[in-house]
């Protein structure tokens, strides 16, 4: 069933230590630069934070989606999703520099700017620092709590083989997904949209959710391929699994494009000063080329590649598409954050690259250490009955 082409041999231990080194080096470089250019550091850091937050929260969301609808696509990636969800406390920690820099990043957090703007005064009831902090505590509290519940039930099930733990996970899945959709929409409004607090779009949260779906499926495909040489995944993962994941990735790519374009079309058709200004900045000068590249590499190229069965079924090929989409997702985060700041013309800083790599190194190191803690498949699951003896669990 499992031919060699599905396996990309990678030493996970080495990946873990190397990622940590890269992460520390990247963040250290950014920290030094932050002394002289605090605002640029925070902008780049925010984009990098959003990139990895999308994958960590996305892992939690896909885990709940799998428990809600089932399917073998989720069965093989369950442990990857669980390990990803266990990194959420790290992201809560990584949020701290942003919280200390609220006045630098967000115009609504600066009293002198609010005093000069009546719209911001009206919005002050929602956009103020204490309430912002309370909301962040609420979002991360809910996400971490959901992640802890799912991981605990999964461990209990591994220990006892009692199916009632799976039942619990399935019962919480629908309410959990509703909680996810609402909290991540609000978090997108708070963290990204409020960079330009006069602008608003009701499709924004949904667009961010779809982008998270793209990023998370891309990440999971890459990780599944990296881990598929290890027992017990080796010999169990087939090209059909990559085919299914590729189809789901294609669906999210199309959904993201649909929502992102719908938002643009409505604002473009309305052409109101408060709304269109967001796009005017993002579609002029160098940002226009950036946006065009987003359209091509976040939609056109992956769309046509993912239509082809031969690409979805062969791990090295679909991993290539997934890697491209991760880069495109980073470009989207930069495109959402950077144009919010003066100067209005195109500007990109080396920290826009270094900060995501720095955060990512530390995040991946933690992720791999979490992934190694448990068997790569839920060995007591009824699906595996008779395939593995419990003794192999260790």
């Amino acid at each position, binding site marked *: 069933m499992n031919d060699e082409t599905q396996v990309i041999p990678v030493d996970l231990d080495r990946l873990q230590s190397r990622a940590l080194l890269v992460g520390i080096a990247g963040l250290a470089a950014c920290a030094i630069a932050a002394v002289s250019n605090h605002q640029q550091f925070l902008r780049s850091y925010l984009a990098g934070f959003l990139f990895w937050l999308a994958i960590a929260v996305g892992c939690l969301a896909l885990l709940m989606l799998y428990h809600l609808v089932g399917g073998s696509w989720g069965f093989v990636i369950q442990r990857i999703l669980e390990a990803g969800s266990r990194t959420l406390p790290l992201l809560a920690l990584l949020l701290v520099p942003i919280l200390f820099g609220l006045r630098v990043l967000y115009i609504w957090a600066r009293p002198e700017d609010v005093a000069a703007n009546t719209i911001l005064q009206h919005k002050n009831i929602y956009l103020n620092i204490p309430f912002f902090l309370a909301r962040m505590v609420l979002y991360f509290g809910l996400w971490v709590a959901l992640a802890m519940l799912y991981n605990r039930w999964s461990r209990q099930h591994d220990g006892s083989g009692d199916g009632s733990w799976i039942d619990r996970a399935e019962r919480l899945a629908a309410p959990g997904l509703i909680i996810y959709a609402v909290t991540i929409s609000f978090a997108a409004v708070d963290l990204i949209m409020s960079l330009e607090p006069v602008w608003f779009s009701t499709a924004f949260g949904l667009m961010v959710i779809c982008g998270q779906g793209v990023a998370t499926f891309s990440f999971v495909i890459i990780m599944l391929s990296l881990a598929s040489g290890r027992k017990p995944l080796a010999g169990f993962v087939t090209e059909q699994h990559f085919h299914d994941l590729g189809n789901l990735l294609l669906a999210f790519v199309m959904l993201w494009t649909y929502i992102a*374009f719908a938002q*643009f*079309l409505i604002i*473009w*058709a309305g*052409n109101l000063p408060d709304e269109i200004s967001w796009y005017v900045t993002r579609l002029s000068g160098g940002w226009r080329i950036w946006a065009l590249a987003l359209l091509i590499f976040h939609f056109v190229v992956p769309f046509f590649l993912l239509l082809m069965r031969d690409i979805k079924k062969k791990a090295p090929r679909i991993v290539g598409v997934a890697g491209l989409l991760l880069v495109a997702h980073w470009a989207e985060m930069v495109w959402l954050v950077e144009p919010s700041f003066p100067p209005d013309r195109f500007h990109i800083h080396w920290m826009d690259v270094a900060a995501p790599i720095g955060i990512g190194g530390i995040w991946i190191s933690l992720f791999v250490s979490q992934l190694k803690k448990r068997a790569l498949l839920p060995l007591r699951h009824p699906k595996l009955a008779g395939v593995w003896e419990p003794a192999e669990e260790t």
Partner: protein
Amino acid sequence: MEKDPLLYGVLAEFDGEHELLEAGRRAYQHGYRHMDAYSPMPIQGMSAVIGFPKTRLPLVVLIGGLAGCFGGFLMQYWISVIDYPLNIGGRPLNSWPAFIPVTFEMTILCAALAAALGMLALNGLPRPHHPLFNAPSFAGVTRNKFFLCIEATDPKFERDQVRRFLLSLNPREVTDVEQ
């Protein structure tokens, strides 16, 4: 030996799905390619065993989709820019973002129609009669019978050899099917 123009193929009936799956595998290993399996329900792995030729349907759907895409866009372009130019809110005549929804829907519509009609055309449907209905026992295929038919169009087809080969697979019966 010259081929019989009146012969559609040789049909063998088997006891059940496992026997049919095994027979299909053996026939494929033996070198036969133009064959088909018939059963009352879908059999897991059957299409992989007897060979699943690549169809041209994806190409048909792609052409349909592209035709819908460009046709839909050009239709709107022609209406708004060439045939009946109207100043709407001071926007340029070729306001492409407004054309995208219709272009998108036309792409889907034409691709779906191409898929449905192309599938029928490539399958040679609709077709009121099929030569296999000439075999008296074949009517049972919708209830409880399992068949493998090696067709006369197969490059390796030679009636007596095929009969002997199919008989070696331990079938219930083997019959010639006329056109």
